[in-house]
């Protein structure tokens, strides 16, 4: 069976060399200049909080919000883990940007034929069994590529080996139902710009709660409306018939 891939990012090991971004830009044929934030030309970027570097990128959720909200299904969660985007389908409604709990998708605002841009977890390389470009380039092992199950186990081992150093949490293990990017850190995640209040169930459940009621609304509503129409219509018919009867009786009586 195909194992789901993931990346483990150990923030204590990151030295901020930016090799991940350089490798990413090369792999995705983007301009080589260094960028400090996610953009349409950088799928990953480093944030700095008092000497701690945090890699920002698409989290590749197990049940991706973007894939669920897209009206034309332009996003797909690949069995290997990456969430990929098909520009040929996209109509540009930007619901993915509005909905993404990590605010990752970027838009080509200056283009007249814009695309969404975000990390695709090197899905072509990954599907060939290769690691992602960024993890391969990382000189300190801060970004490690592997099977999600193995990486989770390793993360727990690291937390257990140095309980005083690490915050006892793996960010991405449970957030929005689990993601393919896992973080461990020595600094509380909320101080590093992470949203720590995200729900642990997948986000698409929220809209599904409403969408799943549609068949019920249609059948019950349709029957009800038809029933009401039938009754009111019948009432009208009876009324008209009685009126007619009444009128003919009257004219009949009048003649006599």
């Amino acid at each position, binding site marked *: 069976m195909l194992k789901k891939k993931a990346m483990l990012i150990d923030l204590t090991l990151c030295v901020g060399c930016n090799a991940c971004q350089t490798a990413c830009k090369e792999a995705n044929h983007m301009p080589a200049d260094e960028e400090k934030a996610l953009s349409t030309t950088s799928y990953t970027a480093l944030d700095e909080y008092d000497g701690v570097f945090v890699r920002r990128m698409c989290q590749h959720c197990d049940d991706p919000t973007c894939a669920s909200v897209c009206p034309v299904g332009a996003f797909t969660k690949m069995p290997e883990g990456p969430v990929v985007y098909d520009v040929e389908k996209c109509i*540009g409604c930007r619901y993915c940007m509005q909905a993404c709990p990590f605010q990752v998708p970027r838009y080509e*605002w200056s283009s007249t034929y814009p695309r969404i841009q975000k990390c695709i977890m090197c899905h072509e390389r990954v599907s060939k069994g290769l690691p992602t470009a960024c993890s391969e380039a990382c000189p300190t092992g801060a970004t490690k590529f592997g099977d999600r199950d193995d990486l989770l186990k390793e993360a727990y081992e690291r937390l257990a080996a140095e309980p005083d150093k690490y915050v006892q949490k793996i960010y991405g293990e449970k957030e929005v139902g689990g993601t393919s990017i896992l973080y461990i850190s020595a600094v509380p995640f909320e101080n590093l710009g992470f949203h720590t209040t995200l729900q642990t169930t997948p986000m698409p459940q929220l809209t*599904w709660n409403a969408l799943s009621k549609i068949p019920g609304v249609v059948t019950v509503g349709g029957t009800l*409306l038809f029933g009401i129409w039938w009754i009111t219509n019948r009432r009208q018919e009876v009324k008209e018939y009685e009126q007619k009867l009444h009128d003919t009786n009257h004219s009949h009586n009048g003649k006599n």
Partner: protein
Amino acid sequence: MKKLFSTFGFWKVTAVAIMLAGLYSTYVRFFQGLGASTNLSDTFPWGIWIGFDVLCGVGLAAGGFTLAAIVYIFNIKRFEPIIRPTILTAFLGYVLVIVGLMFDLGRPLQIWHAIIMWNPRSVMFEVAWCVMLYTTVLALEFSPVILEKFKMTRTIKMVKRISIPLIILGVLLSTLHQSSLGSLYLIVPEKMYPLWYSAYMPVFFYASAIAAGCAMVIFESFLSSRAFNRGLELNLLNEIARICVLMLGVYAVMKAVDLSDRKMLSLLTVSRFETYMYWFEVTVGVIIPFIMFTQHKIRKNTTGLFIGAVLVVAGFIMNRMNIAITGMEGWTSTTYIPSWTEFSITMMIVTMGFTAFYFIAKYFPVFVDDHEHEDVHKYSANVYSMHDDLRKVSSPV
């Protein structure tokens, strides 16, 4: 300037000015992109074209299915004189929503993708299908007016034969669609300010749309009566106002219960921008018109009715804008103020709506002539003897 106004009339000059500005902005939008024409950004991807053109355009068209249900499903035929203009308002509303979407979508020429590329898990997919189907239904519902003009009696008969299934389909589609615009925002629980975010947004959107749709019927009747120098069906509008006030009441109670269930009542007194906007919206759109419309004296007064309806519509617009903009600014810590090009395109779309209504009503039998239809005659003649009528009519719905 004064001479210009007096020669062509104030509204015509204004409309032309708005259209010219809008056309320029249209050029900027399609030849330089969304970045050049809007103040949208990666942190704030949805602006007034979604908040106003789509959310409000659809909501304000809700009079169409409400009145269609009253007249054809509940068989309350005395409302027939105002059904045509109401269906027209709804139809134009939906067409303009599609026009608005063509501006907002990054790849508007791909809009048809939703027909063949399905994603039933997406609320936007549901919205897309409802817009397509309901616009078609509205076009069919309105078609007899056009066909009558060209005396195509056989085609009219064909349309009339499917009218009841059509009306039922229309009511169902509207129900789904009005509520699904609320469902769109269910996916952003952590981003939207909790005064507005609720699992019941679909229900709130539905209820408030019916109230606003009723208010639009009053608003539109009032304006047409002035534009076309015709009588006002005051007693019918009085009853519409009663449905409106009923829905406002239901809406207000649901909102209050929801706030208290979520233990968010304390937010109502926190000194924050969101709180002020919330109170502004509720006071203008719910509290004041509720008090006004419960007064029989105000409901039977033309000005009272009109002011009440304008307040409901204004409050409705504020609600949708608060959800789309105010409620989303805090979390993303962005301030979004629409660019002038965004404003001018929205104004152009609204102007197109008013102009289209005016010309269609002028050249097609939207307002049926008093002599041809007895009911109209009866009702417009009896405007001032309303008490007798009121005693006769059973309560609406």
